[in-house]
């Protein structure tokens, strides 16, 4: 009888999986790599939508209510939608400061930190550019942070997380080598983008972004600003417009028609464009679309 109970207990422990909620798909994908079968991962925001403005649907509350771990991007990216959800999820485990709350931005070196902060400059990111997922090297940092957190929450399986992390890190280094090689041909390209979404990728591979289609962060394009862009692109011979999947595409196409630049739809997150459903495919697609 005793041994039976013990087996039951072991079995229940063996199947116990950590319920992970990630705000964005890329974070979810990394958590899955590190957690493997020991975790069940759900993603709150659809990558079809603007990551700054996710609708805080009540259905997300049921997900958050049962989560053991909430992984957020941080850096203000979720400021417009997540706080009221966390408040109503009635789950003490995942509140700011609790053990089951992981803000990845605390592990990543953020770029583009503004010198002065005011809403007069639009919806700027006061803590620096939060779209750090666009740098494929940050995947390693995120994986490590998630592995640490999972080991802390589920210490019995620490060895497995460690092993998963080591395997994934090894694979990812090999992948990065390939990616770096492919990107060599793309150095010194000149682009403009809609919002400063792709800065981390561009910086990593020496591509220069000259301007954004939105005149100020979060402000819709104006004809005056668009004309300025057209002149700038002609002067600087910029021939590529990086367009995300969720903003209107009219302005980009208008600028393209006046400058002979090409409009490239670039995914900002895993799964944002068709064919970018895995981490590798996601970065491959960005590389491919910017380089060719």
């Amino acid at each position: 009888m005793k041994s039976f109970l013990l087996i039951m207990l072991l079995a229940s422990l063996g199947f116990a999986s950590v319920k992970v909620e990630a705000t964005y798909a890329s974070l979810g994908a990394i958590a899955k790599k590190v957690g493997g079968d020991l975790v069940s991962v759900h993603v709150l925001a659809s990558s079809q939508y603007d990551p700054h403005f996710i609708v805080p649907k009540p259905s997300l509350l049921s997900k958050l209510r049962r989560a053991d771990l909430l992984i957020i991007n941080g850096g203000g990216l979720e400021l417009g939608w997540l706080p009221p959800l966390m408040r109503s999820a009635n789950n003490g485990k995942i509140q700011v400061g609790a053990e089951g709350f992981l803000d990845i931005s605390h592990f990543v070196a953020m770029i583009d930190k503004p010198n002065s902060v005011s809403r007069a400059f639009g919806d700027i990111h006061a803590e620096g550019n939060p779209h750090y997922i666009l740098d494929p090297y940050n995947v390693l940092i995120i994986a490590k942070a998630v592995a640490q957190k999972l080991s802390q929450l589920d210490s019995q399986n620490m060895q497995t997380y460690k092993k998963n992390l080591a395997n994934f890190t090894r694979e990812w280094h090999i992948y990065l080598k390939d990616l770096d090689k492919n990107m060599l041909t793309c150095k010194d390209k000149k682009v403009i983008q809609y919002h400063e979404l792709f800065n981390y990728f561009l910086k990593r591979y020496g591509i220069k972004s000259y301007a954004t289609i939105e005149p100020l962060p979060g402000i819709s394009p104006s004809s005056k600003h668009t004309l300025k862009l057209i002149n700038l692109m002609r002067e600087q011979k910029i021939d590529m417009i990086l367009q995300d999947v969720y903003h209107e595409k009219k302005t980009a196409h208008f600028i393209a028609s006046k400058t002979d630049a090409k409009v490239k739809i670039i995914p900002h997150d895993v799964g944002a464009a068709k064919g970018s459903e895995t981490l590798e495919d996601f970065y491959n697609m960005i590389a491919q679309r910017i380089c060719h």
Partner: protein
Amino acid sequence: MKKTLSLSLLLSSLLYSDSELSEIKERLQQQDIKIQALEKVAQERSSVNQSASFSQNAYLPDMALILNMSAVSRDVKNSEYETYSIPGFIQTGDAAIPFNKERGFNLNYAEFAIRSSVDPYFEVFANFHLHPNEFEIGEAFVQTRALPYALFLKAGKFKSSFGRINSKHQHSWNFDMQPVIYEALFGPDAISDPGVQLQYLFPTDTYIMAGVEAMQGSNERSFGDTEENNLYIGYLKSSVDITDEFSFLGGLSIAHGKNTTANTTDVYGADITLRQQLDSYSSLVLQAEYLDRNKDLGDTTDKQAGLYAELVYKVNKNYSAGVRYDAITKNETNLSPDIDCDNLQRYGAMLEYKPFEFSRLRLQYSYDQTKIINGERRDINEVILSLNIAAGAHGAHSY
């Protein structure tokens, strides 16, 4: 730096002999070591605590200022408008009209809102309504952050989560005017009282939430017997995502209290919200509520009900448009029979422009057939142009 160094090394190798060169190399190395040491000192200095002693700036709460103002045009004189009544609900002179009352310009309120975590267990929220001649604590409550068993507790003065629109602040409504049935049953502040609230979220895949509240019951339109805490509220809410883009939210509520005659009043509410998301910035939302009241007055019981339904199309980040219909659907009271209570309804439409997330201009028109002025029914045409500003650290609104 490196380039110029190697360049100068190259040049010097052409100019100097080998011995001189090794001397220069050595000197350079020493220089390098010195630079590294200096950098280390600088780094240490920057990580040293340089904040003012005893400064608590980092603990400042989130604070926001909300300003709401309007320009109003109405085909009723101000002196007559403030005497309006709604037959069966509001008597002449009892209408409290805090928003958009005057023809011409109105500063409706400046609201000062504060939110902060208190400690690992509590969070506090307060908003202070400053009307031109009045200070009002709109809400001031403390709520739990980490209660076990998916429970949530709130205590203080707060807006009840009865129904759909009751808990929302005026500046987050889709129209500036309050739904007629809410104004008729509860007045401009809706159900807002000192009390406690307990909510529970079910551990299901589908969102199901149940809540109970005990409140003082100071709302005189429907309750008002405050000899002790006399108002009890309960509700059940659920939401289903039918597709990724189409979601349904529904709720059933009940408020059970004692009115000024010390008899019971029961208000039942049903609400639905249907939302179709079209893209990141565009959506179509239908929201409707039905409220039914039984107010026992001792020898008679008022049986009344009404509804509103609104459809709002968010075109993009900047523009929205919407229509609303209000109606009193049941009005069985002991009013004198010569007052005509049929077809109490209102039609409204609005067009909204948001230059940015935190500023909003809204133009609204309403045709109101619910009011009695000077003893007879009077249809009112009203146009409101309102401006709402939210500055500072203003938290995101809930669904």
